[in-house]
């Protein structure tokens, strides 16, 4: 009996001296095995107890076990919280990870697509090189019409053009669907024989088309306003002005309030340099001309629709303030890397 009690006291002493020597995590793990493991001192102590023994002694060994656990755990906490990472410099530069960039036009297209998809439009892609029928004749622009000799269209031959607008998609979509309803957004490359600060020979347009029974002018206003607010900001407003296009009747020019002067037309008592009296031109729109509906194979007596075709680069420039469209097409990595 006495030997066990002496043994308990010995273990306590040994632990105290072991703890002094162990200042690492590995050391603590070793002590844990030494005292509390399967073949540890506590287990051996339990095994050496006679079968009939004083329950007080059993309790003493359990107390010893608790003590060892507490001491080891305290020592572990001390080690983990000790300031052994001598100087930790938070300002050390991170290891650079490769990062590329998504082009501004792709970002704009993705944003535009998401806005219209959220309204239930289906994304489409139609030919960028097309026949005269889809580009002009079928869009109510007969041969000999002044809109034909605009000098701004690229031709491959007399019948094949590089489209200067995405409206050819209207006829293609009607042919695809064969019957109303239609609700599509066609985004693609378009071409025009022009180069200056607002024109490049190649640019991008997005064309919306909605055809169904009883589609009316207020619906065009609704979609326009929704796009303008989603893309440019909730504080922006739109207006329609009368205009003329061959493939819509009536036709409109859509304006949006200027972001620079908040639509007032004035910046610090001088006229705003960006807009015309507080308004910026977004682009053209209109109610689809009955002849175009007919040419698409639909009956204009049974359905009506609206369409719009706006420039991706144009809305991008309006939103970001990039002053020259040619900058958007820069391939300077230092420019691309900004986005």
């Amino acid at each position: 009996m006495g030997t066990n009690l002496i043994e308990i006291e010995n273990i306590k002493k040994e632990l105290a001296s072991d703890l002094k020597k162990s200042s690492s995590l590995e050391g603590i793990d070793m002590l844990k095995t030494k005292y509390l493991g399967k073949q540890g001192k506590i287990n051996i102590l339990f095994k050496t107890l006679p079968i009939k023994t004083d329950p007080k002694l059993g309790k003493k060994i359990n107390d010893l076990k608790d003590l060892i656990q507490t001491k080891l755990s305290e020592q572990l906490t001390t080690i983990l919280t000790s300031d052994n990472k001598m100087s930790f410099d938070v300002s050390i530069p991170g290891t650079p990870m490769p990062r590329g960039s998504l082009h501004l036009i792709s970002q704009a297209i993705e944003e535009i697509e998401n806005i219209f998809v959220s309204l239930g439009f289906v994304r489409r892609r139609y030919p960028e090189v097309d026949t005269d029928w889809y580009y002009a004749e079928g869009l109510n622009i007969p041969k000999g019409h002044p809109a034909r000799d605009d000098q701004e269209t690229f031709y491959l031959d007399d019948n094949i053009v590089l489209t200067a607008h995405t409206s050819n998609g209207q006829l293609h979509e009607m042919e695809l669907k064969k019957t109303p309803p239609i609700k599509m957004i066609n985004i693609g490359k378009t071409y025009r024989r022009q180069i200056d600060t607002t024109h490049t020979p190649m640019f991008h347009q997005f064309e919306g088309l909605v055809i169904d029974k009883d589609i009316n002018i207020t619906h065009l206003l609704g979609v326009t306003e929704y796009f303008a607010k989603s893309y440019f900001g909730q504080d922006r407003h739109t207006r329609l002005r009368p205009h003329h296009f061959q493939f819509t009747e009536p036709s409109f020019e859509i304006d949006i309030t200027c972001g620079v002067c908040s639509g007032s037309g004035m910046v610090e008592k001088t006229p705003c340099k960006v807009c015309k009296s507080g308004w910026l031109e977004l682009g053209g729109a209109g109610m689809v001309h009955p002849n175009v509906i007919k040419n698409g194979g639909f009956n204009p007596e049974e359905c009506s629709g609206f369409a719009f075709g706006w420039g991706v680069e144009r809305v991008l420039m309006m939103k970001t303030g990039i002053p020259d469209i040619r900058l958007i097409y820069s391939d300077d990595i230092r420019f691309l890397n900004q986005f």
Partner: protein
Amino acid sequence: MDIIITDSALRKFLDTTADAEVISKHVSLCGPTFDRIKKVPNDYIFEIEAITNRVDTACSLGVARETAAILTQFNLPAKLINDPYKDVPKFPDGFPIKFHFSIEENLVVRFVAISMENINVKPSPKDTQTLLEHTGQRSLNNCIDVTNEITLFYGLPCHVFDLDKLAAQKLIIRESNKGETITTLDEEKNKLPGGDIVIEDGSGRLVDLCGIMGGQVAEIDDHTKNILLIVPIYDPQKIRKTSLSLQKRTVAAQLYEKQPDPELCLPVISKAVQLLKERADGDISSDIYDYYPNQRAPKLISLDFNWLNRFVGIDIDKNNAITSLASLGFGGTIEKDHLICSVPSWRYHDINIKEDIAEEVARIYGYFRLPSILPCVNLPSESTNLLLSTENKIKNYLSAVGFHETYNSSLISLDMIEKNDLNPDTHLKLKNALSRDFEYLRSSLVPSGLENLKHNIGRTSDKFLTFEISNVYRRVSGQTLPSEISNLAIISTEDYRNTKGRLESLFEHLHLVDTAFLPGKNSPAFYDEKCTAEIHSQNTLVGHVGYIKPTVLRKYGFQPTLTVIELDLPKLTTKILPQSTFTPISEYPLVIEDLTINSKKLIGDIIEKIKNTTTLIKDVEYLNSYGTKHTFKVSFGSFEKNLEQNEVNNLKEIIQKQFTV
């Protein structure tokens, strides 16, 4: 068409208390747009955009009519005054001079002429001079100025000749012959393309380049006493053609090609005669000459009020609609729910269908007063467009792992094609290129990518990694249209192995299955064939990856290593698994061992062979090579149990045996 008029010129036809600012603000919303308004002493100058099919608004009269109709809707008092259509002008007859012109068919819609005598040529009154100056014109003399002022007011050009300078009083209006010449009032000698409308004075001399500019021969001068005044309307297409081919875009030409109203000819000549009497002391010296071969029947269009409401989207008061139309000059009779509209003569060409009438009602009512409503369209659901979604996935992936996206023009130069050893004859060429830089449609994205690299030399010390996704265009025999194929091109200054590794990660990201890189045959001409692979997926060729060949590199002055990938995305998209499938994961740990194989086979083939040895081989990773000795890291594993070391050793032996010759 942009026109300039003044506030005072507008008020010749408009009676209103509204000031210039109010007018410009309101009319822009419903009619022609007032782009700019400028204050000058005692007046305002308006820059107005007349919509292209509304030639009737390209003058004071037309803007005044629109303004009167629009201001009324805003409850501002406004009235059209001095309407030339109101009174039928009367001309005296019985003069000794009676003109009989010879006019070829189909050149003239209407031709009205009269002569005057006792003309006293002198400067115009101060008011007229100021008006012309404000509208960007030069005051010349009282006679010429009258014609310019009349155009400004009524939008109809007219012209005066010195009658005594014409060889005969019998003018011939005909088409020009190719090569005929006429010196116009701007002192330019014009060689005519042929088919232009001209006036000959009977002696073979051309005296007028009709609808564009008068000839110098019969110009008014200080000694002019007798004049011939004409108010013609010509065939619009002929005028446009001549004007464009001679690059003379005069106001007259722009008006004529938009088909002004022939009913305005008599009121206008009457007004001109009156002004010439007042300002040049002239007297009429001939009967009025009026050639008007095809008088037009009035146009009637039926408007269903119920349809109008459905089309505009709100209920518009019937009376309001009728009032708006009447203020624009439309007549009408009501039949039940229909209005039978008669179209005014000055709107003959732009009003054709009921939608045109709806536009008039809706715009005068005010588009800004209409509510914004999102349409509810029951569109049947459609499956996702895989090509478009794959393009987006590729763009987002590549741009996140270090590649910069570029956008290049689809139009490229002959030089770019030739530098890449491509064949210009297989490219589509523009018939009317803007410049030689943009002449051909590209059939590969790589030449543009190489240009991008060239432009960036010295701009960055880093490696160059770019990509572009765009259509390429290829002629297809037997097909009218070229095919437009969405391609992905990657330009990389990293070596083949690194670039291929990046591509393989992309393929995994896309779930593209069963891919293989095979030695390239017939690769595009810019590739170094020995160092180029065909990329296959499920036995279909989807693109190439390889080095640009040294001769091409040399032309650009590039460093030796340049890896280029070009993929056909529609083909690749068809090989993508529609959705990722679940593969169970083994509970038992892998045993990973290095293995060196001595073989002269391609590394890809060796890996394939190792993998095919047994299903217990889960992965083979290539480490390095020394001569024909290649080291791999092989992972062994089983779904049923822990593999024992002796089993793994056995498998390694089996693998090795396959490579002993």
